[in-house]
């Protein structure tokens, strides 16, 4: 599983980076979204992967190894929320930029259509 997830993280990040370097605002925002998927998965996976673990406490918390690692999850949750917020803002800014500059180039200057 680790190998699969690692490759997945790499592929998401790679696609995201490629888009990040494109000249259109929409490409950039999609790129950032993909990168943030990769980063979220990375943080999520740092505690090790657990299939079929209990996500919530059952009875008294005696055998800790049967539970999924909660801290990375909490971190990812925070990261997802913050990523959502900033993506929304970026979206609005790129729309405003498109409105004010008249095109959707990241530099606001449309050299090549």
């Amino acid at each position, binding site marked *: 599983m680790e190998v699969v997830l690692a490759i997945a993280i790499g592929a998401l990040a790679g696609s995201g980076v490629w888009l990040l370097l494109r000249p259109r605002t929409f490409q950039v925002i999609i790129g*950032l979204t993909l990168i943030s998927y990769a980063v979220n998965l*990375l943080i999520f996976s*740092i505690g090790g992967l657990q299939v079929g673990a209990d996500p919530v406490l059952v009875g008294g918390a005696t055998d800790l190894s049967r539970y999924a690692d909660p801290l990375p999850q909490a971190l990812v949750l925070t990261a997802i929320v913050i990523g959502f917020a900033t993506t929304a*803002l*970026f979206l609005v*800014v790129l729309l405003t*930029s498109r409105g*004010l500059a008249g095109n959707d180039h990241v530099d606001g200057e449309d050299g090549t259509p």
Partner: protein
Amino acid sequence: MNGALAIAPILIPLIVAAIQVLLGIRFGRLRTSLSFLSCLSLVAVAAMLMMSASAPNGEGTMLVYNLGNWPARFAIVLVVDRLSALMLLLTAVLALAVLPYALGRWQRMGPHFQPLVQLLLVGYNGAFLTGDLFNLFVFFEVLLAASYGLALHGSGARRVGAGLHYIAINLTASMLFLIGVGLIFGVTGTLNMAVLAHLIPGLTGTPRALMHAGAALLGLAFLIKAAVWPVGFWLPRTYSAAIPPVAALFAAMTKLGIYVILRLSLLLFGVDAGAASMHFGSEWLLWLGIITLVVGSIGMLGARELGKLAAYCVLVSSGTLLGAIALHSPAVTAGALAYLVISVLGIAAFFLLAGLVAPREGPEGTTQLEPYDPAIDALFAAEDERRVTSPAPVVILAACFLACGLLLAGLPPLSGFIAKFALLAPMLDHGTGAILLFALTIAAGLCTVIAMARAGIQIFWADADWEFPRVEPGETISVMGLLGICLVLTFVVAAPWNYLAATARQIHAPEHYIHAVMGQATEARP
């Protein structure tokens, strides 16, 4: 209750912002008074924290605040030491000083200016106080989000274009931040900086390599925020596009990047970190700092508008500070802190001033300051003896401009000179790189003089048709307030310097920090 003082710098602006949001746009006066109240109390709280941090019982006096009453090792902890208290006071004073400036036309350029400023302060203060790596990320994001809002305040093609770049780059930086935090947490199992510092010497092999990778990416994220070459090109455009009070508030933002690098590099990669990790990356920091300094100076020389000039001053100060803290010397660090304080105040004043003397609302790249024309006219042209009496506001502006120039160039009689002296004097002991930094810092001073003289001469001396927008009293108060502080710091040197020197000693002995935080582990609830 003394402990609760540690959370106050975060809570005061947050509560005020929430109330301001709740009040809505109609209660403008009330919102403004609340902002003043907040800033005043922040100054008071920061001063109290500073006093408690410099309490006489040794250099290890630190206030450690366990949020939620959980042990510091596991939950989030706030730490007030000399350095964080200093930064708190600096931003509080900055905010208070900038506030009157924005009261008139500036805050009316869009809704929610006041709450956004308060939230920016939340971000600053949280980042200064927190002792937790991920919480640092969160407060960075608070700061950045507020800064996005403020950078875009007033809208317009220029601000939005610059804001787009600013946001895109900082979002990328935030990703790097997360990856870095993730890797470090992955190999150490903790987010607490003190615990981390405690664990790092014990890391070996792969975990150490991974931790270094995390630290490097984290560092890069901070370098982006500190606008270091080659990842700092966003700064001049963003800062010069923002309205002056916002740019002035941003003056402390790059310093936050520097602050974090200073804190973490000394805490995690200080003398106790073990041979493989000691001074990790400081060579890089030194050279990046030097290049940033050079690039900033070049930019300053070439700046065609006042806002850009001020923005490049920020780059110069960033580069200088980065290089200085990379030297890992308490004496240099103390000087760097002095330089940091003065450059924040001076640059802020300069941004504010730039808004008063320069018609800002032109398309980007408008030449406000003409490039130097080497054509020489007759040496002894007849003296033009027109009667000169400049109106008083212009004289005041000119004097303030001169003061800014002196501060930023590090020339006497203002405290910029002392700060630069304090920074430079101990630098000669630290090898070739340090000597280069020494020389370039001095050269940057000259570049500042050249650039400022060019601008000042053109604005105040040359153009009879230079338009000075009507200056409101609040705007003058802000500028003079900031400059006044710098003036006072020229004469009142002993006590501030002792504080800074002790601060540098304290952060260069990370064991104080580690003990203060980890010693708390037993006291909190199980």
